[in-house]
């Protein structure tokens, strides 16, 4: 999966054919397809969105207040946002380094590393959590060692961090990589010829070009980390006010027959995610226009 694909959803489709007889037929067909697409969008997206927002915000500000008065809700949202931001930052840095290394350097096993980077895309998130328990749980060599030295990964925030870093890594790498690939190296070479050092080239030439890619990747990672359930639910222990994240809390509320409270917190989480998607669209759209200019 690449953010390349995200970019390539076109804003200007080609002109439809306009020769005589086929026009009427095409118009019918177009509406046939369009109705399916509209049905899909309506059923699959508009409707659920409306349901959540109306249930969650139906009572107005009062229902928001109720949502926050739910024990653990405020802490869960705070923890979720905090973890997601941290993860986005860390992976923005390391993901860029990895993308750079994979794109610019040649070394033995490069293909393998590239495939390994994609592993989190394929592995079920729950299995990610299970892997972390296997590695860092008290019964393993590594886990036992860490626990004895006071480092708790399982049933602690560190576990949440590691799980989220795992699942969001390929998002950043695969968003930055295409930008690196497309980059015209002429500017960099010119800078070096003119005497700029490596650090200066990095700051003044490379990073500005990569910036939108890194930010987009970071935002995607942030959005993904906000909503992560499977990897977190097994590793964190879901301890109220400690390691309980918003998605897990929502799941608990819904399966505990508290749909209004779930919807209120869910609407907030949904709003955040949707906002992020819109921002990324704008960023990517702007970069498209810039590169086509």
């Amino acid at each position, binding site marked *: 999966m690449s953010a390349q694909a995200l970019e390539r959803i076109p804003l200007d489709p080609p002109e439809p054919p306009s020769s005589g007889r086929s026009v009427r037929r095409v118009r*019918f067909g177009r509406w*046939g397809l369009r*109705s*399916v697409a509209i049905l899909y969008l309506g059923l699959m997206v508009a409707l659920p969105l409306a349901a959540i927002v109306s249930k969650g915000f139906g009572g107005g500000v009062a229902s928001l207040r109720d949502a926050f008065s739910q024990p653990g809700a405020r802490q869960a949202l705070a923890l979720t946002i905090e973890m997601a931001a941290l993860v986005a930052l860390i992976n923005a840095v390391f993901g860029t380094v990895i993308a750079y290394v994979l794109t610019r350097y040649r070394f033995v096993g490069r293909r393998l590393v590239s495939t390994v980077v994609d592993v989190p895309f394929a592995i079920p998130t729950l299995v990610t959590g299970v892997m972390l328990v296997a590695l860092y*749980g008290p019964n393993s060599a590594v886990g036992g060692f860490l626990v004895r030295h006071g480092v708790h990964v399982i049933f602690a925030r560190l576990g949440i961090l590691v799980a989220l870093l795992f699942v969001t890594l390929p998002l950043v790498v695969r968003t930055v990589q295409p930008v690196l690939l497309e980059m015209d190296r002429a500017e960099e070479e010119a800078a070096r010829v003119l005497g700029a050092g490596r650090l200066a080239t990095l700051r003044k030439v490379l990073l500005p070009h990569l910036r939108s890619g890194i930010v987009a990747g970071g935002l995607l990672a942030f959005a993904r980390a906000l909503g992560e359930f499977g990897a977190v639910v097994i590793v964190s222990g879901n301890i*109220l006010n400690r390691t309980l994240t918003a998605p897990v809390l929502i799941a608990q509320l819904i399966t*505990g*027959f508290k749909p209004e409270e779930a919807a209120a917190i869910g609407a907030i989480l949904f709003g955040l995610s949707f906002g992020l998607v819109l921002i990324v669209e704008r960023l990517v759209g702007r970069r498209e226009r810039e590169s086509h200019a």
Partner: protein
Amino acid sequence: MKLIGRKAWLAFTVLALAGAACGGSGSASALKSGGKCVPQKTPVITLAAYSTVYDVYGKLTSAFQDQWKTDHDGQSVIFQSSFGGSTTQAQNVANGFPADVVALSLAPDVEIVQKAGLITHDWTKDPDGAIVATTPVVFDVRPGNPKHIADWSDLTKAGVQILTPDPSQSGGAKWNIVAAYGASIRGKVTGYAASSSSDAQNLLTGIFNDVTVMDKSANDSLKNFQSGNGDVAISYENQVLTGAAGGKGDVEVLPPSTVLIQTPTVVVDKNAAAHCVLPIAKAFVQFLHTPDAQSIFASVGNFRPIDPAEAVKANADLKQPALQDVFTTDDIGGWDQLIDSTVFGPNGAFTQALKATKG
């Protein structure tokens, strides 16, 4: 293009309906709102149980299924079980979870279901008072008991990290608190005077100062402890023994004075009747009191016998030590008093203790 549009639409509709048809046939759809229920050829019993008894009830339901098959011309009964914090489960049932039988960890949680109008018979008059198993509250410590925990007062020592669940969600949590309270009130804890509710409150304050986290169920609390957090978990004895037998490193420490947890299992009349399974549900609950079922409670669940006089005895096979001073909730005033005033009431020992630790 026109054909594609129509075909895709048709395909989607067909798939959706097919999916719906497939799904509709396989679920527990004997429930009809209002009107008479429809008996199913393969009846389904839905069980809502507290968090730590998945293994035991797995065996119990399967033993019951075998017995029912033999006695009823090969009729199969299906059990759908859900496990969670006892109080949370009771609230779920009150909020609409369609349980036919509730296996909860304390009587007040059954009352939650009763107050919702779902239990219409006087269940306290059921055989054995509806109690199906007992187990004392104990301490779960690390191998070698490095913090030398022996009594309730040891839990108040500085630097001891305690795990116990959240009483608003877990039945086990309430048992733990009542055990500490009762031991203190009975004057069995050194340094805390008998019949002194302020001393009992001080004990609870000291303990909860050391509680690092309150998980949402007894099961979660135990797993938290097993994952390496905390120095001691206050828990059900049967859970500690199961963990120890499973090589999880749990070690039981029996306090000199503790409460005997008595867990009730009751038929939810309204739901069972609506699902047309009332006779089967009743038969299942009755089965739980038979010697066969009781031996499953013991061997699989590490529970003690229902009769308190038997429960105090040691059982070498199950590694259950003899109980020293053990009491039931009736001995310290009964659940109503404990919940409404002495322990969990607005001025109760625990309510005040929690306020003191938070402040």
